[in-house]
């Protein structure tokens, strides 16, 4: 289309361009810069080539952290997506309870992330925390600071508590956009609740669910604050996820080169997996 040309429009884009440059592009370039050099922290740099990348890719520590990360992400996706959809299905579609439900759902999302970690830390303490004491009182040997299994359980419970709401809200938005006629037609056709879910609700929710999966995937892959406050990666390294490991390398050991290489690899993994998810879920859309 050759619309009437008006160059003034570029001025409106300029602030955004500058913002993106300062926010994303320049820091990214700094990381790239670090990832190919060696430094001892005195502002002198030596060319290191791809050695840090090789190191990271062959490091068992990285493999272990990546493994834990994948386990964590897929576990919470497997719980949060179905649970979120289920809760959304139970919510009323109209009436005075709608705003009440929506606000209740949104509450966990409004709490600062480090506070979430702190809340759960205290909540789960075996001696004084409500959850910890109750579980021990019921006869379970529960101590998330000592036993890796308990630590994982707490970590996942915390993430489910914190983020299922997001899936609920997205799925709910998808559900309310389905015209009443579809439900009426299905009732007339004698469809069971399962058939209504399978043939109407799920297909119509597909787009929002794709977004939900993508968001939850990226966010959970990047997660740092909450597990860091809750377990600090422990006991041992049992809950050291990629981001926690990265911070340990970068700030704990001050190995800037390997840390930079690691974060780039980390970034590329997220990018590749997000693309993969998106393509797979959208594949049938245009047929």
């Amino acid at each position, binding site marked *: *289309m050759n619309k*009437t040309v008006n160059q003034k429009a570029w001025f409106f884009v300029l602030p955004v361009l500058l913002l993106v440059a300062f926010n994303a592009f320049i820091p990214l370039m700094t990381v790239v810069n670090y990832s190919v050099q060696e430094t001892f922290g005195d502002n002198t740099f030596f060319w290191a080539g791809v050695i840090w990348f090789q190191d990271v890719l062959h490091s068992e520590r990285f493999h272990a952290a990546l493994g834990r990360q994948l386990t964590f992400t897929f576990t919470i996706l497997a719980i949060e997506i179905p649970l979120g959809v289920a809760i959304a299905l139970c919510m009323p579609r109209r009436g005075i309870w709608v705003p009440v439900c929506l606000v209740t759902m949104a509450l966990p999302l409004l709490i600062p992330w480090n506070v979430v970690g702190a809340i759960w830390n205290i909540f789960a303490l075996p001696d004084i925390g409500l959850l910890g004491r109750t579980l021990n009182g019921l006869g379970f040997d529960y101590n998330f600071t000592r036993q890796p299994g308990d630590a994982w359980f707490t970590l996942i419970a915390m993430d489910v508590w914190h983020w299922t709401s997001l899936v609920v809200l997205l799925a709910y938005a998808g559900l309310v956009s389905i015209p009443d006629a579809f439900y009426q037609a299905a009732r007339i056709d004698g469809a069971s609740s399962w058939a209504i879910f399978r043939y109407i609700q799920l297909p119509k929710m597909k787009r929002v669910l794709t977004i939900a999966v993508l968001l939850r995937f990226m966010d959970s892959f990047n997660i740092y604050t909450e597990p860091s406050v809750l377990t600090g990666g422990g006991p041992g390294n049992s809950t050291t996820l990629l981001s926690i490991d990265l911070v340990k390398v970068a700030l704990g050991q001050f190995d800037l080169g390997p840390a930079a290489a690691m974060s780039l690899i980390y970034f590329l993994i997220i990018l590749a997996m997000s693309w993969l998810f998106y393509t797979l879920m959208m594949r049938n859309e245009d047929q």
Partner: protein
Amino acid sequence: MSLELKGVTKRVGAETHIHPTDLTLEHGVFNILLGTTGSGKTTLMQLMAGLERPTEGEVWFDGADVTGMAVQKRNVSMVHQQFINYPNMSVYENIASPLRVARLSKGEITARVERMADLMKLTPMLGRRPVELSGGQQQRCAMARALVKDASLVLLDEPLANLDFKLREELRDELPRLFADRRCVVVYATTEPVEALLFAGNTATLHEGHVAQFGPTGEVYRRPRTITSAQVFSEPPMNTAPIVKEGDTFRLYDGTEWPASAAGATLADGEYVFGIRPHHVTLTPTGAHPVAIEGMVLVSELSGSETVIHFRHRAETWVSQSHGIHAVPVGEVAGLHMDVAQGLYFDRSGERIGF
């Protein structure tokens, strides 16, 4: 005051949306663009408004070349098929918005909005939001906003298409009155021949990006230059059939004959295309030379006061339109009558043969 398109074309990529077009639209009458969806009405309007730039050719307004001029700098207003209003503003604010942009004084704005609201019968609704109005009132509000600013070019793109038919009837009556004492070029796009006829003025028949014919509405309707122009200007669609002239008779594909003198024709013998509008094919004979034809009824469509019968005649589908309500059942064989004196005759290239 006039709007002129000089050799205007519009191509997007390899597709031609508007073929070379020359049109001169005058003020003081309705200029109607008549054509089906996709015939190029909206594109032509966008070119006139300056929302699109022609690929070739020039647009002149009031004696000046405005081809490259941005739409903001032209004094144009437009009403769309959808009821476009600002949802969070009252009807008053909606109507006043173009005047605020033009920085008119407060008193002037109030005066103009009130006059417009009175004309559009919106006075009791001035304080309401668009969502609280009926469809007809919403479209009236959109029209009031377009008309309040004294634009010198007013483009109406199927403004009545989304309204109930009784409302459409009402607004069709009102619209010409709104423009009676204004000096502006009015362009009105529609898919409905009857709307074009009732607004009179001038009509351009559009088909696939071509202007088939342009002229006074009644003349374009009764004296179409080509078969395309006649078909665009016929709803229900015109019946067409191959016909042979031999000596003193016309013979239809099924052998039905009528004297050539009935059509007043002095044509050379040969093959032609016969076109007859549905209301000249009726259940009861009309005109001086009714010719009988039989058909198997596919459906009788009853509007409130007329009957449109779709029927099969040999392998062809024909349409007839009669006064009154006649519910002829599906599948029945009905006797119909063509008033051949009202028929149109085209040569095989589609040009009408004037006689």
